[in-house]
């Protein structure tokens, strides 16, 4: 009883705070938590257009997925996208950030904007541009390759080029945000440390590798986590430029969810794929959080 009174007193004291965060939490519950729980539940049902007429099938859809070659292909592709795009994004954006950082503020601002604009334009707009760039007969890329004597490549029609094409488009708009974050992180490094390294005789490369990079570890881990999640949810570029093809060689789990739910009208199976994806992202995030714990953030 005493405990409850203490709790009630504490709650009254904190009430304004709770009221302030309530809209956010209510929105989270309504638009995130409930749909997630509903999708998990739906994955145990066979459900088509009329979800009300669903049939409980237990883990049958998960068992079916384990035998489905297209699901396996999508799963492998998704992991491959993450293994290619995330390191490439981090490497390219870090190099660009290191190149921009010594510039004067006005030049820095220009490059920050220039690299961030593709991210603002979004994957759909860029995909339309890239459809022209990758066109087999009148595309810019094959034209440029032709100028140096390379035969036309069917970028969107042959594996593994379709996979590479998706990676290239995604990289265009994923590097902008990490560049901004890395620049912010670099700006936070005390000039005294850099000066001390200079006095000790470190050259630019050594300063970058042994001073800046270790001190950027928190930003690196943040970028790694957010980029991994973003790439695992890759969808719109695949939808726009390859349609998952040719013969599913560029498909991803989220694209497969779309196809299964909204083309195949199999909402139960699509939910099961979604749950698998959620578990994978949770595992990756947990591993990354483990690294974070050891980081002084």
């Amino acid at each position: 009883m005493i405990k409850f009174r203490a709790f009630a007193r504490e709650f009254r004291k904190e009430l304004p705070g709770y009221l302030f965060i309530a809209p956010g939490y209510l929105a989270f519950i309504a638009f995130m938590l409930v749909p997630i729980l509903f999708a998990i539940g739906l994955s145990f049902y066979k459900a088509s257009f009329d979800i009300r007429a669903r049939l409980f099938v237990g883990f049958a859809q998960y068992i079916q997925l384990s035998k489905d070659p297209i699901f396996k292909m999508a799963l492998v592709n998704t992991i491959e996208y993450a293994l290619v795009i995330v390191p490439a994004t981090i490497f390219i954006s870090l190099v660009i950030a290191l190149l921009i950082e010594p510039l004067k503020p006005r030049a820095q601002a220009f490059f920050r904007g220039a690299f961030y604009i593709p991210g603002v334009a979004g994957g759909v707009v860029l995909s339309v541009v890239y459809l022209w760039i990758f066109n087999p007969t009148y595309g810019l890329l094959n034209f440029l390759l032709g100028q140096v004597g390379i035969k036309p490549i069917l970028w969107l029609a042959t594996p593994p080029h379709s996979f590479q094409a998706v990676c290239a488009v995604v990289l265009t708009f994923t590097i902008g945000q990490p560049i901004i974050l890395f620049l912010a992180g670099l700006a936070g490094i005390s000039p005294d440390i850099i000066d001390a390294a200079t006095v000790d005789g470190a050259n630019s490369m050594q300063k970058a590798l042994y001073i800046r990079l270790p001190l950027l570890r928190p930003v690196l881990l943040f970028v790694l986590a957010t980029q991994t999640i973003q790439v695992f949810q890759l969808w719109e570029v695949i939808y726009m430029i390859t349609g998952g093809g040719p013969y599913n060689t560029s498909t991803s789990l989220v694209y497969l969810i779309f196809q299964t739910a909204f083309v195949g009208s199999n909402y139960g199976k699509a939910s099961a794929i979604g749950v698998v994806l959620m578990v994978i992202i949770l595992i990756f995030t947990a591993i990354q959080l483990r690294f974070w714990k050891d980081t002084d953030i």
Partner: protein
Amino acid sequence: MAKKSVFLFVTVLVIVSTLLAACQPTATVAPTAVAPSDTAVPTAVPPATAVPQITITYWAFGTEGSTMTGGGLWSDWYANIFTQYEQAHPGITIDFALKGYDASGSTLVVDTAVAAGTPPDIYFDTKFRVKKYQDAKLLEDLTPALTAADIAAYDPAVLAGSKSSSMMWSIPADGGYWNMIVNTSLFDKAGLTNLLPQAPDYTWTTDQFMAACQAINDPANNVYCTAFFAGSTSMDSATNGWLAGWPDCKFFDAAAVQYTVNSPACLEAFTFLHSIYEKGLMVPGAAGLIDDTTDPYWLGQNVAMLDQGNWYDSITKSGVAAGTIQPFNYIFVQVPNKPGAPASPVGMSNPDVWGVFKQTDTAKLQAIYDLIQYMQQPDIATQIAVGWGKVPVRTDSNFTSTDPVVASPLAAARKFGSFDPYFVNGVPCGYTDVRTAWADARQAFWQDNADIKAILDTFVARADAIVTACP
């Protein structure tokens, strides 16, 4: 302790999720008050004036601003028809809308409405897109909407496609007859007109086709003989239409309920098609191209010949009318037949059909039957067919046309017969999934050194498994 907590958390999560999914309202059961019968309901249909204040939601495929072949807006045409109907049937209101589809060729707007429990009462679209709702057992039997005279008037082959074993799940308004389109301006310019099939029949063999194809093909000047596309499921009939030249090749065997596109005859057909690819006679990148990306090749006169000529005719007319392309001349010819085979029949598929979603109100269902009975009459159905550049499928419509895109295949159909590049006697269950599998197979097909037999075998195994898994 930590492991125990995780286990407890996961257990609670699964239970809550399952309960949440299970607690949704269950499906309502449609009444069977209006009994379907094999014999048609005669003129005993009660007058709609007896029906008090009924609103019928009617969605047709299209978008706001969709135009009819020959001019005019579909929205205006429907508004006019429905105004007349409402005046003649007091108490009936028709809530009409044109609903488009997304780039995947799916009817996402309708799907969403169905999932939300608010489908339209009537949906008018091509057979394949309506069929998936029948597979999900969401449609009414439309037998009571036809009289015996109506049934007798329909092309039996087309009407058969609207039936399942137990019911008539749709009623066709029109059928899409088509043959190949050839840019004669390109052949004139190259002095190669003599290589094209000649009037009056415009038939040719695959050897004659190949001779013309190789002569006109000039990639250095950005002119290709033909084009195929396989980047999506869209317009796969443009590929399947070529099978007309191999009479023994059947995509699906209705009697055995099996896909048979890996038969020796089909293998021969696809080997010929792949030779077009191997010889560099087509726009490269077929596996990554969709119809939308192929259209500019035709409109820009970068491709000389294509199947499914009715589509390319419609976009050419639109382009010329809008002043966005240079006018050029074209003719319609038969798909080439293999040497020794009869002249190819005309491609015929994709009838536009009416489907009716399950109803709970018998009075409303009767009003819907009345409306469909009205719409499927020869004069109105013919207007719909002409508007889509298609052909009415009622023999009593006395239909003629001077437009070559309709007149040419129609004349050829009367002489050489018509050919459904997918199915005869109805569409099997699960075709949406099969169509996706077929797109995958076609993408594998348009590759260097493609193992055609293995691709077709893989497709047939996958497609048959889909049919077998049908409820």
